[in-house]
């Protein structure tokens, strides 16, 4: 019986500590943890090869999960528990030995807008971000950020290359200022009037809505949130997920950990602690912010395609001058 | 007066461990007229450099007053201290202090920033030619030998035509020939421009050749400040007598003779000496008399005989250290063809032009 679990995590959420503590309390398995960014984690894993001490890898970007799977860094896992708990579209493709990775939470890429100066109807699709009517109103973080790359990859899948590039060009033309800062910065910029429309991950929005800081609530009073494309393909959703490392020295502990992440308590944590959408149905309904945001239609798209698209998207960004 | 020092004092503050405060220059007074060259000699550590630095304005005075061309530049009592860069004083340092980041030409041109480019270049070439280094303008200081560096330092100090030039052993790293030539030319330049100079040297020949006024310092004091000839022949103190030239102070007695007072020395009566003091000048006439090495002639016929203790070859002559029968040691210059070995007895005779006596 393994007593330790070595975890490489790209989850940068300090509040995850509670999650790990619960696991240790429940199983007696202590967790050794290194967290870094997705790319660094994968690089390290790749280098260590057979000597890697890693058991479980947690990443926060679907494209990365796909790429790591492609690179053969994961060990497929047959787990009835996981198969039952996690919808198939949020898992890796089962090639016979089980899926290589599992999504445990999702976050939606929403549009926030300044309620005072923008009509909700003018910004309720991603496409409208490129519409000339929103000229000088849009602000986003860097196009090269994984959250944006993932969204754009999905757009590329829906529209095809020429239309996507035209759309990106339109977004660039509509920008109030060059891309900079993080998602929260965009929300604040919208609230303060620096720009009127922005993209953000849902959990940042939810976090600000739940914040006890009056300044944050003030911000949220001024902005509206839309789940785009509800009438179309649905809002873009990204996945945070995990996998067993190819050379995991403690595969059994790894399995137990992944299964734990799919357990209701862990899922509730994702929803309540970090304002993500749980993948297990019915969990997290008690998060007031998520409740306030309400249910929404998520786009359905194979993760693999998004992952494969990001290089192409980056080149388009380069061409249209999306920084 | 181009330079006037009145009772100047230079003091270095020191920790008690290092011996406490030190008065490196004590109450020195002297004057230099325009175009005059003053030379300071004295034993190592007697305060020569400190005095020059005070005149240049690099050391504050602890007392006294310095006047340059009539203008008071240092007067601690009045709280006055003109900064060095405003004194228009040129100085060549004991350690040259060339700017290592500038080539030779730029070093020499450093003090010429007021001049136009062409004029400056001309002046630099002029100065470098003067010191015999017209071809090194483009070299860096570290590529020069010691003597070459010293000459560049001299050229640099002369270039801005200072109103007073201070040379601190500025020729020490040069060979005799070059040194004499340079001393001559510098002298000529100074005379032509009416610039006064204060020079420190250890080479007494050079001091005599260069000086209009010669001073001997000891332990911070200026013992004598006089014309070179006078300083040599009429030293004011025992220290000066001892320090200048080769000589010994021998016990003597002044006696009255029909021809006037005479000095009776272990070498016999000094016959043809001028300026002999009266016997009454000293109790019982007992005194010390200065016997320089060139006051003593080797003459095998002489009645006084001395044993050769040591013989130093000095090129043109030997310097003999001799012991009289009574043990008194004297020195004698003897042309180098008189070649006697140590231990031999030879005859000597005094031939003193200027009698110099001191109390015992």
């Amino acid at each position, binding site marked *: 019986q393994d007593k330790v679990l070595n975890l490489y995590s790209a989850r940068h959420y300090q509040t995850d500590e509670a999650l790990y503590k619960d696991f240790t309390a429940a199983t007696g398995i202590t967790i050794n943890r290194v967290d870094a960014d997705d790319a660094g984690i994968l690089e390290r894993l790749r280098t*260590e090869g057979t000597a890697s001490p890693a058991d479980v890898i947690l990443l926060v970007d679907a494209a990365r999960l796909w790429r790591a799977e492609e690179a053969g860094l994961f060990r497929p896992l047959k787990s009835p528990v996981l198969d039952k708990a996690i919808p198939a579209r949020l898992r890796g493709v089962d090639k016979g030995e089980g899926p290589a990775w599992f999504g445990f939470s999702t976050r939606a890429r929403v549009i926030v807008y300044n309620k005072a100066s923008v009509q909700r109807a003018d910004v309720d699709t991603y496409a409208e971000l490129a519409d000339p009517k929103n000229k000088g109103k849009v602000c986003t973080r860097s196009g090269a950020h994984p959250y944006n790359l993932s969204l754009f990859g999905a757009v590329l899948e829906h529209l095809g290359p020429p239309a996507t590039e035209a759309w990106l060009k339109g977004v660039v033309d509509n920008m109030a200022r060059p891309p900079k800062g993080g998602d929260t910065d965009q929300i604040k910029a919208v609230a303060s009037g620096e720009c009127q429309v922005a993209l953000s991950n849902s959990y940042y929005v939810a976090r600000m809505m739940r914040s006890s800081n009056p300044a944050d609530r003030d911000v949220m009073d001024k902005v509206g949130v839309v789940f785009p494309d509800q009438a179309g393909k649905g809002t873009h959703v990204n996945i945070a997920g995990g996998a067993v490392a190819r050379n995991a020295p403690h595969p059994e502990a790894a399995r137990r950990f992944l299964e734990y992440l799919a357990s209701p308590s862990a899922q509730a944590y994702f929803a309540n602690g970090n304002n993500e959408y749980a993948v297990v149905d019915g969990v997290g309904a008690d998060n007031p912010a998520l409740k306030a945001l309400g249910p929404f239609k998520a786009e359905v798209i194979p993760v693999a395609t998004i992952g494969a698209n990001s290089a192409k998207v980056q080149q388009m960004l380069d061409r249209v001058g999306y920084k | 007066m181009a330079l006037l020092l009145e009772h100047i004092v230079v003091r270095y503050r020191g920790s008690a461990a290092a011996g406490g405060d030190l008065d490196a220059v004590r109450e020195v007074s002297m004057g230099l007229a325009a175009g005059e060259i003053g030379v300071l000699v004295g034993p190592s550590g007697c305060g020569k450099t400190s005095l020059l630095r005070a005149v240049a304005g690099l050391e504050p005075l602890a007392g006294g007053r310095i006047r340059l061309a009539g203008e008071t530049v240092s007067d601690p009592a009045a709280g006055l201290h003109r900064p060095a860069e405003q004194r228009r004083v040129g100085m060549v340092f004991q*350690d040259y202090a060339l700017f290592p980041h500038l080539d030779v030409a730029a070093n020499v041109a450093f003090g010429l920033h007021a001049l136009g480019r062409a004029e400056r270049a001309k002046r630099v070439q002029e100065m470098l030619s003067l010191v015999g280094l017209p071809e090194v303008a483009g070299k860096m200081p570290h590529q020069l030998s010691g003597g070459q560096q010293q000459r560049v330092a001299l050229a640099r100090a002369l270039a801005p035509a200072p109103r007073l030039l201070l040379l601190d052993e500025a020729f020490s790293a040069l060979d005799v020939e070059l040194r004499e030539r340079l001393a001559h030319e510098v002298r000529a330049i100074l005379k032509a421009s009416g610039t006064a100079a204060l020079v420190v040297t250890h080479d007494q020949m050079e001091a005599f050749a260069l000086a209009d006024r010669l001073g001997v310092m000891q332990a911070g004091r200026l013992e004598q400040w006089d014309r070179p000839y006078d300083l040599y022949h009429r030293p004011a103190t025992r220290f000066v007598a001892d320090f200048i030239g080769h000589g010994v102070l021998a016990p003597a007695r002044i006696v009255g003779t029909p021809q006037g007072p005479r000095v009776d020395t272990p070498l016999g009566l000094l016959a043809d000496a001028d300026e002999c003091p009266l016997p009454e000048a000293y109790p019982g006439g007992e005194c010390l008399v200065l016997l320089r090495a060139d006051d003593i002639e080797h003459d095998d016929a002489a009645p006084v005989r001395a044993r050769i203790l040591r013989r130093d070859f000095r090129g043109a002559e030997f310097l003999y250290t001799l012991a009289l029968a009574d043990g008194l040691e004297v020195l004698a210059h003897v042309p180098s063809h008189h070649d006697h070995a140590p231990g031999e007895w030879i005859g000597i005779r005094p031939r003193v032009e200027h009698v110099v006596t001191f109390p015992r």
Partner: protein
Amino acid sequence: MRLLLALVCVLLLLPLVALVSRWAALDAEGLALWQHLASTVLPGYLGQSLLLSAAVALGVALVGGSTAAVVTLFEFPGRRWLSWALLLPMAMPAYVLAYAWTDTLQYSGPLQTALRAAFGWKGALWPDIRSLGGAVPLFVLCLYPYAYLLVRAALAERCVPLMEAARLLGAGWWRRVTQVALPMARPALAAGVALALMETLADYGVGAYFGLSTFTTGIFRAWLSMGDRDAAAQLATVLLALVALLVWMEQRAQARLRFAAARQGALHGGDARPLALGWRGSAVAWAVCLVPVLLGFVLPVLALLRLATTEGDADAPGPDLSRFAGWALNSFVLAAAAACLAVGLAMALAAARRRQPGGALDALARGVGLGYAVPGAVIVIGLLWPLGAWQARWPEWPLAGWLTAGIGGLLYAYLVRFSAVAMQSVDAGYARLPASFDESARLLGHGPWATWRRVHWPLLRGAAGTAGLLVFVDVMKELPATLVLRPFNHDTLAVVANQLARDERLGEAAWPSLAIVAVGLLPVLLLGRGRGATGC
């Protein structure tokens, strides 16, 4: 000994060589990518990088040089205090400074919001700080201490006789400073500016946050967005080549001067008497010195404190002291160990090169010096590549596993990246020792080791301290390598601050950021206390 040093150098060069070796992987696809880059973003990257580094270099030279000159050449009330305070901004990581200033000044920040509210003004009251124009002063503020420290040491040991000679040639203080003191300190100034420049070029944090399109941003896009590590490595080598060119040009320009300083008796034990300033001069001196301290340290710290106390999410746990102590300890141990190693290596290298200039060791050392220009994350790639190759070749010798199991890999990466910092400082110190000191010691029967111990070390303690300090604070602030290479459960303050910042919890990130500053200040305090302003 030389062989050992050469070996160490080769080891440190390995990641750089690995980067260069990726050119071998250039295929048709790679070529197409290069064409794409060249026709779209590359000119922009180059332009922004050059503009940024030129402006930062100029700023660092100006601020670092002038503040160092002010506190060493002049005497005024508060000089000692200021000469110490000027080091403070060094403890401030660039990205933290960026957060602090952005939060304060941005459109939606407290200042603009309040002003707009108070006066009814509309729109942006001043240009956004998150831009190239904003990045320049920011980099200058946190990088000028490099130049300041090195120049201060050089000026404190300035050659008194030379300054006096200049006075006697009629040069007023301005000419003395600009034409004698500063040129004499030029190797130090150049070293400081070179460090600042390399750090600027290697920066990713500020560049990403400010949305700059610098070369380093480009490298990261190639790697992260396009998943093309080869292209990233190739881009990194272009950066390397650029820096190598700059370094080479400066060294050529200085060759004569360095040699001169090494032969002349430039080091003078005499006390350098600073020029006393009147009240007007003192006021100017205060202004010159206080502005960088205020902008680079005091105000940002206040801004961070404001962030920490007002922006925090109430239900997020506040700073937990015991955990902070652990993180701080990790940071401190890593920084101290890296500083010792880097200084030791720099001293040994400098001594060996001084004894026998030229040759392979010189070239190797210069190569190692370039490591500083490579972004930390790229170094990580360069370091992991050869390790991966080794791992694949000899699975029974899991080098990579060993290196990441402890802090060995981290220290290795730190040395690759920060040896240059120590070397610049130590070399600048060595350049001020006249060769005749070594020669005297040798003639008195001292071999290399004894000469080092009895002459070099006592005279170079200041330079070594400076080198150690620089490496220490650099490691304190280092992020990408620490993030990827550290062993399990070994978080440092920088890692924690980064986690929170990436999660856009700037309020909470302010605490570990302040802690970085606080721990970084320890050696600054030590160094400042141990030696007076002119001491060194």
